[in-house]
């Protein structure tokens, strides 16, 4: 793994960081679109009417803590502690799944309360932004599960801890995006109808 690269950095990790730089523009566009439309709720519910801040706070906290378990998984594999690595990978995936479960619950509740995908520009922008984030989390869960499977096949060892590190970077990135979404979309006072 100690490839001789010009910068001394591994190709994979550098590529992941370049990709994350690119992702900033993707989520930036989605968040800006949402901000543009947060007042455009037409006849449907307004964000201030419908957001359930206590509920979202809990799921936000869950996702935040999954960053901790992710970094613990990495620390474990880096010192060759395969057992704890598996434990923390599994915990991270589970916390991610809880977050996604929360999102599914939130979406179904909103739909029941009359906020469908096509209700208003606000609803389209909201579901698209949080949906994109949810897809990112789900892909992260798939990657974590793939890591777990390859660990049980004996293919995830201290030597390829970098794989865990790179998937971890992705995971943390998805988490920091949610940090922004939680504040900007949920906590900043929202218009009511």
């Amino acid at each position: 793994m100690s490839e001789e690269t010009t910068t001394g950095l591994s190709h994979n990790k550098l590529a992941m960081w370049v990709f994350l730089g690119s992702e900033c523009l993707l989520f930036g566009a989605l968040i800006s679109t949402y901000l543009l439309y947060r007042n455009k709720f037409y006849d449907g519910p307004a964000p201030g009417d419908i957001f359930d801040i206590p509920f979202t706070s809990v799921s936000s906290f869950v996702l935040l803590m999954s960053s901790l378990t992710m970094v613990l998984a990495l620390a474990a594999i880096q010192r060759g502690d395969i057992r704890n690595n598996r434990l923390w990978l599994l915990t991270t995936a589970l916390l991610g799944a809880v977050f996604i479960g929360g999102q599914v619950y939130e979406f179904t509740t909103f739909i029941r309360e009359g906020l469908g995908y096509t209700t208003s520009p606000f609803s389209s922008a909201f579901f698209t932004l949080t949906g994109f984030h949810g897809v990112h989390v789900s892909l992260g869960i798939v990657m974590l599960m793939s890591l777990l499977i390859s660990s049980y096949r004996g293919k995830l060892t201290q030597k390829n801890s970098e794989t865990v590190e790179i998937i971890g970077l992705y995971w943390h990135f998805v988490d920091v995006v949610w940090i922004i979404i939680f504040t900007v979309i949920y906590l900043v006072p929202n218009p009511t109808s």
Partner: protein
Amino acid sequence: MDTSETTTDVEEEHEHHEHPSDGKYMQIALILAIITAAEVATYFVHIGDALIPTLMVMMVVKFWIVAAWFMHLRFDSKMFTRFFVSGIVLAISVYFIFLTVFEFWTEG
């Protein structure tokens, strides 16, 4: 936190200098949790005009903590930071202008 005896055999090629211990990570998570609690508290306790600046500061601090510690930017090559910060700065500038052109900040 049974880490103390195993941290020594981290291979040489992983020398991102000293990575924090598991305990340190948990302390950081605790700080993040406290800030999150404070964020959520603003929903219940009204603090008037200071609300949005306060929320923004807390958001940036959380973002920075995760990026610096959990994503190891503090310990890793500056090249990674450069790419990430480029993306963030570019995104903020471009979309700030974008929203300005839409008169987002003034329409209230």
